[in-house]
């Protein structure tokens, strides 16, 4: 087993474990805990990205998600002053529904994973570094790039409007 | 390709509707003027088209085709032949008359006129279309305003119920027909929505009999619901009873013919075997229209319900003509479609006038109106007479041709149908005339005013004149229908059954030798 494979298993296990702790932490129901585990998930996923030679994305993942998004979450949690929620009774319906939907999706996934021959192997030629991605982004995807910038602008305006105390 | 006159005919009302959108709502005169102008242009062009039409010309005339979705074979394709030339003429005239009659609308005039114009333009377009997609879509475009208009401008206590009923019935009918049309598109294998092309294709490769037997009833009952085929008719009288007069005029006059036109244009030539199979059933069902609904009409106490029922009863004759599946029958059926368009528009227009002036259509409360309403009363009397098949009006020609046609195929049905036409029709029409126009005039209607203004008289005079012209000179229309009806009939290859009488006449009758 190569080092890369070992690292994969480590990061994958870390990602999934932290993911579980985001949605269901047996020790704490505090949203802040969930947010912190989400940071961990994202960081370990950045590791997976590196293993896939997507260096730029790994960097962006950490910068944007861990740096901006999660901070935003934390700000909101603090802003709302959410206390640790009291343990409500776990609704049977919620659990059952979740399990059923996950089961259904899982069934389909496994069936198809099994049925298709992926026949793909890692190719060392591809390198997701900044230069390569930048060329592609500003050559082939320049229009979507510009559109996304407009989207961000719209989102910003929307958030400002929503956050105003009174719409007048 | 130059733009066909047909495009102008059906786009004129639509453009007028578009123009109305930008007119401020308090410019009533302008709104009315634009609506009248749109329909008037359409009518003049339709008359011109009708006059220029060459009967027996091979293929379609005034054709125009613009490809649209090539992968599905959808194109904008309009054209006329004998089957729809009369319908378009009738539609354009009725639309103009309906626009003229719309003075009774006092609230939200702008929206009303827009919807009215959409209705007229849409249905004229549907009649002109030779492409299944536009054929269906434009009809739906015209159908939806009907519901809205009944809901908003309708009258009577049962307005909401009527709106629901008509909406549900017609939507279901249209849906069933849509399923049939899609199945037809898939089964024909021509991969095109172009009706002439499908017909050409099917001539070479007939649709499998199983498929026909499945698709034909879908079309028959889908279109049948749209035409108020018994027993799917109960939406019609109530819907028309509650609708504002112009809506009833356009719907009963023009829109209702869509299903019949679809049956003749599409279902018969494409699925001849199934057609033969179903025609006996259709012939008996149409007795439901003629006799049953005729009897129901006898019981009505409200003029509009009576007219509505009689209009349903008239559909029976058209169905009977189609069911007889021969040249005379199809021609007669198309003829009644045109004639009934004028007639239905006329009667609903007149009842709208009476309602406007007296505030009721309850026949027991009316009476003696002929004294006050000279013009309207005379017109209503004529309409009633035309409704019970009086010669001189166009309906008679169609009905009598249908009887001749069906006599050779369904003698028993014909006998009952003649009873329905002559006796039952006569009874309810004369009863209505007796109750509304004859007898003493109630005090409260002493000040009812007749239509004296030319504009008020114009729509009724126009419709009456059309009925007269086609009733006295039926060749004007039959000459145009016959060549194309022949094509439709020749597509239904099976030889129709000969009358039993031929066999009987071979037997020597000893008694008849005694005559001197």
């Amino acid at each position, binding site marked *: 087993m190569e080092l890369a494979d070992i690292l994969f298993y480590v990061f994958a296990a870390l990602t999934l474990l932290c993911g579980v702790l985001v949605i269901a932490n047996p020790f704490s129901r505090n949203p802040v805990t969930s947010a912190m585990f989400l940071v961990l998930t994202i960081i370990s996923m950045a590791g997976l990205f590196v293993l896939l030679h997507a260096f730029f994305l790994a960097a962006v993942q950490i910068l*944007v998600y861990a740096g901006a*998004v999660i901070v935003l979450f934390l700000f909101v949690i603090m802003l709302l002053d959410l206390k640790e929620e009291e343990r409500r009774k776990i609704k049977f319906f919620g659990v059952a529904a979740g399990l059923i939907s996950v089961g259904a*999706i899982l069934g389909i996934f496994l069936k198809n994973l099994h049925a298709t021959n*992926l026949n793909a192997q890692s190719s060392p030629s591809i390198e997701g570094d900044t230069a*390569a991605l930048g060329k592609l982004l500003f050559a082939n995807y320049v229009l979507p790039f510009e559109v996304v910038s407009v989207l961000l602008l719209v*989102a910003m305006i929307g958030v400002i409007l929503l956050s105003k105390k009174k719409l007048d | 390709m130059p733009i066909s006159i047909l495009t102008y005919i059906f786009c004129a009302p639509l453009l007028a509707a578009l123009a109305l959108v930008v007119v401020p709502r308090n410019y009533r005169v302008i709104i009315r003027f634009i609506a009248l102008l749109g329909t008037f242009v359409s009518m003049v062009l339709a008359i011109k088209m009708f006059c220029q039409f060459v009967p027996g010309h091979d293929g379609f005339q005034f054709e125009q085709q613009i490809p649209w979705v090539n992968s599905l074979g959808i194109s904008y394709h309009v054209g006329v032949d004998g089957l729809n030339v009369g319908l378009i003429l009738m539609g354009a005239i009725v639309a103009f008359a309906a626009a003229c009659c719309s003075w009774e609308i006092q609230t939200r005039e702008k929206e009303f006129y827009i919807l009215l114009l959409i209705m007229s333009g849409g249905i004229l377009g549907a009649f002109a279309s030779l492409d299944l997609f536009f054929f269906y879509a434009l009809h739906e475009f015209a159908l939806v305003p009907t519901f809205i208009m009944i809901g908003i401008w309708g009258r009577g206590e049962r307005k909401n119920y009527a709106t629901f009923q008509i909406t549900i019935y017609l939507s279901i009918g249209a849906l069933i027909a849509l399923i049939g049309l899609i199945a037809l598109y898939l089964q024909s294998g021509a991969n095109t929505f172009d009706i002439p092309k499908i017909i050409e294709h099917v001539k070479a490769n007939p649709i499998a009999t199983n498929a026909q037997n499945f698709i034909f009833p879908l079309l028959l009952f889908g279109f049948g619901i749209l035409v108020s085929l018994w027993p799917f008719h109960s939406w019609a009288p109530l819907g028309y009873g509650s609708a504002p007069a112009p809506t009833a005029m356009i719907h009963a006059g023009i829109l209702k013919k869509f299903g019949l036109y679809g049956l003749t244009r599409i279902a018969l030539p494409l699925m001849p075997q199934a057609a033969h199979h179903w025609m006996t059933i259709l012939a008996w069902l149409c007795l439901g229209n003629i006799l049953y609904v005729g009897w129901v009409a006898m019981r009505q106490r409200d003029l509009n319900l009576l007219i509505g029922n009689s209009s349903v009863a008239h559909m029976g004759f058209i169905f009977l003509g189609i069911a007889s599946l021969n040249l005379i029958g199809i021609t007669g059926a198309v003829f009644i479609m045109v004639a009934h368009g004028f007639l239905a528009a006329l009667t609903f227009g007149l009842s709208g006038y009476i309602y406007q002036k007296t505030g009721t259509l309850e026949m027991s409360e009316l009476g003696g109106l002929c004294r006050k309403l000279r013009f309207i009363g005379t017109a209503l009397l004529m309409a009633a007479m035309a409704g019970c098949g009086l010669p001189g009006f166009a309906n008679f020609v169609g009905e009598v041709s249908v009887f001749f046609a069906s006599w050779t195929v369904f003698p028993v049905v014909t006998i009952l149908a003649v009873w329905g036409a002559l006796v039952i029709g006569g009874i309810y029409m004369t009863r209505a005339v007796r109750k509304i126009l004859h007898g003493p005039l109630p005090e409260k209607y002493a000040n009812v005013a007749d239509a004296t203004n030319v504009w008020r008289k114009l729509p009724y005079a126009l419709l009456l004149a059309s009925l007269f012209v086609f009733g006295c000179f039926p060749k004007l229309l039959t000459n145009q229908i016959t060549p194309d009806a022949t094509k439709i009939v020749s597509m239904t290859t099976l030889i129709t059954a000969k009358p039993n009488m031929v066999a009987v006449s071979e037997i020597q009758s000893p008694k008849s030798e005694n005559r001197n």
Partner: protein
Amino acid sequence: MHVGLEHYLTVSFLLFALGLLGVIMRRNLIVIYMSLELMLNAANLALVAFSRFNDKLDGQVLVFFIITVAAAEVSVGLALIVALYRRRQSAHVEDLTSMKL
């Protein structure tokens, strides 16, 4: 065993399933939102893996866009939650049933 595409896909799927479970089972809006982020990340992972194993960089560009859009979405979504909380004084799904007739 050599790590191949299916391994990455499995991880991606499991992460997605976790997110889904979170969305359906948790009742705190903020946590539901985090679960949504998990699902987005799962998709990102699958895309990067596909990109790697199909020898094309376009997948990574797509991920770039997803991250951008996710950022925008989070900002709007959180603003909505704040606005909602101001009005209802609650961030619990069960308290937000005004969609029922």
